């Protein structure tokens, strides 16, 4: 099997500068990595983690979400019917599906599929000023985690999945 590469953001290195979102927006109009401000004022990018067991893929009734050979979870606009329930958007534990209000109903990260085909890395990884975004083999993520990154990640999760609403 090919290397399964995905994104990992070390939120403890991130300064919330929006560069990832900016380059993504420049390339794709609707950014697939998006800044969010937590109640405590931390500004963080929300992004697709290309989960091994992707909830979005499981809930999509149209089979519009699949995984490519390198492990990227892809959304196929040809199969997507832009259903009103937007199950994918709700199922994503990382709030990484984005409603577009345009032709294609939702947008998500494809790890810069076109760029990868040319041997380039995802644009957000290349341009992050703080080296906070890594494009790495899924199995290597654990080695990048630190106490600080885990703490920061927990704060992000508490923001997107507040305890009071989830059991």
């Amino acid at each position, binding site marked *: 099997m090919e290397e399964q590469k995905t994104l990992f953001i070390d939120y403890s290195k991130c300064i919330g500068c929006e560069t990832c979102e900016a*380059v993504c927006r420049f390339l794709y109009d609707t950014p697939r990595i998006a800044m969010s401000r937590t109640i405590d004022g931390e500004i963080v990018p929300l992004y697709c983690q290309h989960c091994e067991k992707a909830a979005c893929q499981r809930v999509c009734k149209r089979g519009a979400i699949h995984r490519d050979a390198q492990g990227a979870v892809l959304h196929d606009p040809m199969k997507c019917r832009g259903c009103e329930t937007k199950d994918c958007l709700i199922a994503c534990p990382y709030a990484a599906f984005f409603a577009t209000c345009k032709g294609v109903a939702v947008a998500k990260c494809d790890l810069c599929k076109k760029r990868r085909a040319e041997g*380039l890395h995802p644009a957000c990884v290349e*341009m992050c000023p703080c080296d906070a975004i890594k494009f790495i083999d899924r199995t290597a993520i654990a080695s990048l985690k630190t106490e600080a990154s885990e703490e920061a990640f927990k704060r992000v999760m508490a923001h997107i999945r507040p305890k009071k609403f989830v059991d």
Partner: protein
Amino acid sequence: MSLSSHTGVMNFGFLQTKNAPAINRSVGIIGAGPSGLAAAGLLASQGYEVHVYDKLPKPGGLMVFGIPSHRIPADRISRGVRDLERRLGVTFRTNTKICCSAPMHEEEGDHFAADILGLSDLTDNHDAVVICSGSWKSRKLTIEGSDLAGVYSSLQFLFPIRAIKYAHSNVSMPDVKGKKVIVIGAGHSAVDVVDSARTLGAEDISLVYRRTVAEAPCGKFEIDRIQEMGVSWLEKRTPEAILGSDHAEKLVVHNGVTGEREELDADIIVSAIGEIPTPPFQKELGLENVRKGDVRWLNMTAMDNVFVAGDVLSGPSKIGKAVYSGLRAARSLANWLDLKAQSREAEYNFDADKISR
């Protein structure tokens, strides 16, 4: 030559693809902050000959001379700059200020400029110019005593800390060791001043803000963090005057809760209440119209072939916004020269370029 990611590099040339043909066009970019570097990367990737001018001794703009180094790794930016030079052939001319009629020594960092060129030197020598000169003039306090010694703006305070490395006789570090420091404001630069003052050995630091923590632009997380470090957080205090004979000694504030007037001891007072844009040649370029989008060509100024991007256009923003603006201005510039080369300017679809704001 590898196209794939260079670890440890802020890759401004991230758009480079394998078969970009060299084209016989030259562009001058004024300012090597994130907007200028992003524009340089895009244009160089498309085969342009790119020259970047900056008045400071090192490219990077506020990423290098404003934001404290503990938050942004300087190496990654300088490697990105080197990559632009070596891989994409971008030429950097540092210590070079581009001027019109503006008086000298007005903003932080002006004294580094050893060389002064006029905008017309650039328009004469390049097919197009992009102004990416940022927003460096600090908003000053206007209360009584604001011009006493020991009163700084955030950039006056932060700039020398980063610039001292480039040893210049006109740069002196704020002497903070063992002193009482009061910082006014609650944005990210206020927090940066607090962190830097602490690193420099300040004895006692207070942050004074006219509203409450809930309204602080830097957010509660940061306020909590600096309080844990021992910084006093004084909210709902509006500065009214600075007292002192030849040097700041006290900050007088109005306490919005008790309605009382308070005198806070201070050796150093730093106002971090924002920056304002300092475009060279504001009027000639019609920047007000560019801001409103009232132009014939996206990001183009009133002068033909002269474009503008980043904080100089938007006012103080963020690295990402500046990068985006730089990329868009560069794309717009390339489209403009393409159509112009074929005398087809009229076909440019302004609205199509405008959709993604």
